[in-house]
């Protein structure tokens, strides 16, 4: 990829991306190509991070551990659902990931948690996401009892229309009241510490790019 093309790409992405300035976008593009392994772009083939590579990044850079959630995050990034994250998906995704407003994040998180994409987070989905969140007490007869109870607690807390499942409206209302519930069913956003580390590492020196 020649320099001119790169600059053009940077400009388009900067224009469409609310939360990053030009130099930041440049940094992210650079990082993307480092990760992909070279800026060689051949006509016709999509250059991008596949599921495994992306999950690896999520795990090492942002400290995520839950396989299911990481899969869902990958889907959140991979807008066109083609199994790989392209450079624009990368920049747009990180824009939300790192700097998104509460509204954007709510939308994103809800999509992550809505496993089957039917617009509701059902009890079964909650159970699925929370099933590893409690210690199994060997003494307990039903090891899932705690999880079931936790699902009930969450529903009681968030299900405003009492239909036994969470709509986006339910979720939004609950999160607005208590921001902590944003990632109610598992961490799908970077925690503040790794976010800060990532940003300082990637956006090292904005002045370096002033001449571009």
């Amino acid at each position, binding site marked *: 990829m020649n320099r001119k093309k790169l600059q053009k790409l940077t400009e388009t992405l900067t224009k469409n991306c609310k*939360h990053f300035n030009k130099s930041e976008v440049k940094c992210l593009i650079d990082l993307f190509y480092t990760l992909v392994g070279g800026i060689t772009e051949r006509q016709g083939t999509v250059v991008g991070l596949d599921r495994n590579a992306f999950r690896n990044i999520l795990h090492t850079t942002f400290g995520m551990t839950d396989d299911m959630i990481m899969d869902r995050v990958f889907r959140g990034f991979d807008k066109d659902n083609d199994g790989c994250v392209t450079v624009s998906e990368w920049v747009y995704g990180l824009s939300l990931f790192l*700097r998104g*407003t*509460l509204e954007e*994040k709510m939308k994103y998180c809800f999509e992550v948690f809505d496993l089957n994409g039917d617009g509701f987070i059902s009890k079964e989905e909650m159970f699925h*996401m*929370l099933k*590893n*969140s*409690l*210690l*199994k*007490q*060997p*003494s*307990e007869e039903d090891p899932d009892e*705690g999880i079931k*109870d*936790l699902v009930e*607690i*969450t529903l*009681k*807390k968030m299900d405003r229309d009492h239909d036994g499942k969470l709509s986006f409206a339910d979720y939004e209302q609950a999160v607005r009241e*208590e*921001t*902590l*519930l*944003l*990632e*109610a*069913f*598992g*961490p799908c*956003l970077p*925690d*503040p*510490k790794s976010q*800060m580390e990532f940003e300082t590492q990637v956006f090292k020196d904005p002045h370096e790019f002033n001449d571009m």
Partner: protein
Amino acid sequence: MGVALTKSAQWTAAGYGPTALEVTPLNEAILKEIIEFIENFLYNHPQEAEYVFAEPLEWKTNLEPSAFGSGYIVSETAVESKEVDNNGQPLLSLSVPHVQIRSFGQLSQFLFIAKDSKLKEAQLCVEANRNPVEKILGLDYNTIKEESSALRILEKLTKGDDPENEIKRKVAHLLYQLDLHLLNNSLKHISLEIRLNPVTVKNDIELLKRFSGKGEQTVLEFIEYTSDYEFSNGCRAPPWRQIHGEICYVLVKPHDADTLCLTCSSEGVFLNGGKTDDEGEINYERKSEVYKDLVTLLKDKSAKFSENMSRQELKFNEEHHKEVNQLSKTAKEEEAIPSNRSTSGSHRSTLEKNQINLVKSHMAKRLAPSLNWKATVDSKDRKSSFKEPQEEKHGRHEKTGTSFSHGRAQLIRKSVEKIEDIISDSSSESEEDEESPDHRQEANADLPSEYWQIQKLVKYLKGGNQTATVIALCSMKDFNLAQETCQLAIRDVGGLEVLINLLDTDEVKCKIGSLKILKEISHNSQIRRSIVDLGGLPIMVNILDSPHKSLKCLAAETIANVAKFRRARRVVRQYGGITKLVALLDCGQNSSEPAQLSLYETRDVEVARCGALALWSCSKSHTNKEAIRKAGGIPLLARLLKTSHENMLIPVVGTLQECASEENYRAAIKAERIIENLVKNLNSENEQLQEHCAMAIYQCAEDEETRDLVRLHGGLKPLASLLNNTDNKERLAAVTGAIWKCSISKENVTKFREYKAIETLVGLLTDQPEEVLINVVGALGECCQEYENRVIVRKCGGIQPLVNLLVGINQALLVNVTKAVGACAVEPESMAIIDRLDGVRLLWSLLKNPHPDVKASAAWALCPCIENAKVKSVC
């Protein structure tokens, strides 16, 4: 009587001067019995009452001849009874100070005349007449040995049978009965006495030693034996004193009294004559009552000791209990008080590294059967059940477990150092917010449903990962945390420990959630104490350094709630909290605030507000005020004072107001031009803010320059207008206070007159609480230094309520009232009113007031009164 007196009564150790009866409960009881016997003698045995003693009972009395009335011939220094014996000798004759009495009738009357001092008289009589029976019945019986005295007397008496002997026999019989009665009584007394033994005494002393040392928190400054040598029987007293039952002697120095030299004997503990300086010899004579043990004596002698002890009571008793159990089986009943709980509790904590506090483990144990609670309490079980992913979490528990240790009662550790540490950490000087008795629910059946729900949530907090923890925290927050049931439920199921543990993790969301709960429940004073006991404050102080503003805010707000008592405030300071809180104040100044607030974040202003809030709580301790100043807090507070957010201004002004009690602050307040802003905020709509501003002005306006500043910035008018709203008494007190101090300057008084404040003040002389009255009267006293104002006060009818206040008892109020009345009295017309209202007499009577300031002020007030009275008489 004879036997009782020789055998039971406790005479002072022989060999020192005239023998005297010691003041002991036993002696007192014997004397009282004797008095009762004699007093009733006249009524019960009228015939025998006339029996004339063989020899008079003679002693030095303290009674004055003037005390005697009809039935006696009274002269200046002598008294004789009109009642005489067959030979015409008076049965009672007193020539000061000797008195001689020769019949029970007269004895009885004498005691009646002696009234309150009869116990003393009876004692003197018994002391002077070591063998009263002999004197009463005659020398014949001198030879009778005490052992079988009464029987022998009877035997002798029965030989003759003339009427006189008949009476004599009856008297002897009565005396015999009394003697028996006394012996029985004293037996009861003696059986109640607790015998100390060397082992218990030693334990007591060793234990007290551990709790002694320098510093306010210890119970004693020092306690030590006078002798290092211990005999094989455990006594330290020299052998010739051991015979008297004495075990050892100790020197004790309480915080608030001189060094005491005590004798520990088998009868109990008492004060002896002290160590003579030159030879180090101890004056063994008893100088106080006998106390049943060392602690009881010290509690009585030193208020500080009993105060600090009561705080240490539980710990001390636990320790005591253990010690006693270990070393001897002779523990006294009251030492056995600590229930099984404390012993078993401390036993547990040895077993459990986690050091679950005693109370909680008690609670948890009780709950164990109903839920699988044991598993969560018993860390050993838990350890084994914890699976790989949770190890990090468990590590967290362990880590904080050790960091709590200093705050916990770690009574198992025997080292003195540790124990001292505990004392200094958990006891404190008089605390404003005293521990209210625990209202723990006693029966499971009574527990509300919230209790079980909270317990379940705490279980999830303990055993859940971050996601589950956040859900549980959010759900817990939905309970009514302002309700005591919920607050105590969280504590009782061990929730506080978990919440505080969470603060020590890296999970920002968990910390936020935990602080949100702690912030609410720390409104409860018991919870506050538990948080401090669990070592929560140092962790929160550390969070103040966090890069997350919302965390800082929550931590500061929680500290603001917790630091409502002195010990907590001290902990905040000791962990560097004051400096960090002051640093928070600086947050509001960075203009480079990002336009887009990141998630979970709050604004800088909010951070500063929370910092001020916490400083406000902390500023109630003197040392903290100084620390705030040293940390550079004043300029920052001054800067924050320029904002217009009420939420911010209230804690800022509150802190300033609290600190303005210090001279350093008042100077700084003047230098930082704070007065201007205080005045500005008097015009605020917020009553609380107005109150604190007025209060701050009140504190600062002792200084003349400050008073002028208040006037120059136009502060007098809002003050005067605030007088018209009398509903909020706290604010009224602050406002009147500010007016009082401001009116010390004449220019200010002129202004107040302009604003018609004087009339309003006069109106406030009735139906107001004392705090308001003191200030109102103080202000009027200042105003009335000027003629015009005196006229106004008089015309508004202010004299009468002022004079009425002269009968009060509040000293501060009286000082001000006398001053005001005195100021009014300068004007003849007002003087006339004062005179008519009997004010002069009232002032006069205040000269007898015990408080010197009141006396002085009353005397000053009398001066113009006298002067004006003179004028009147001249006219």
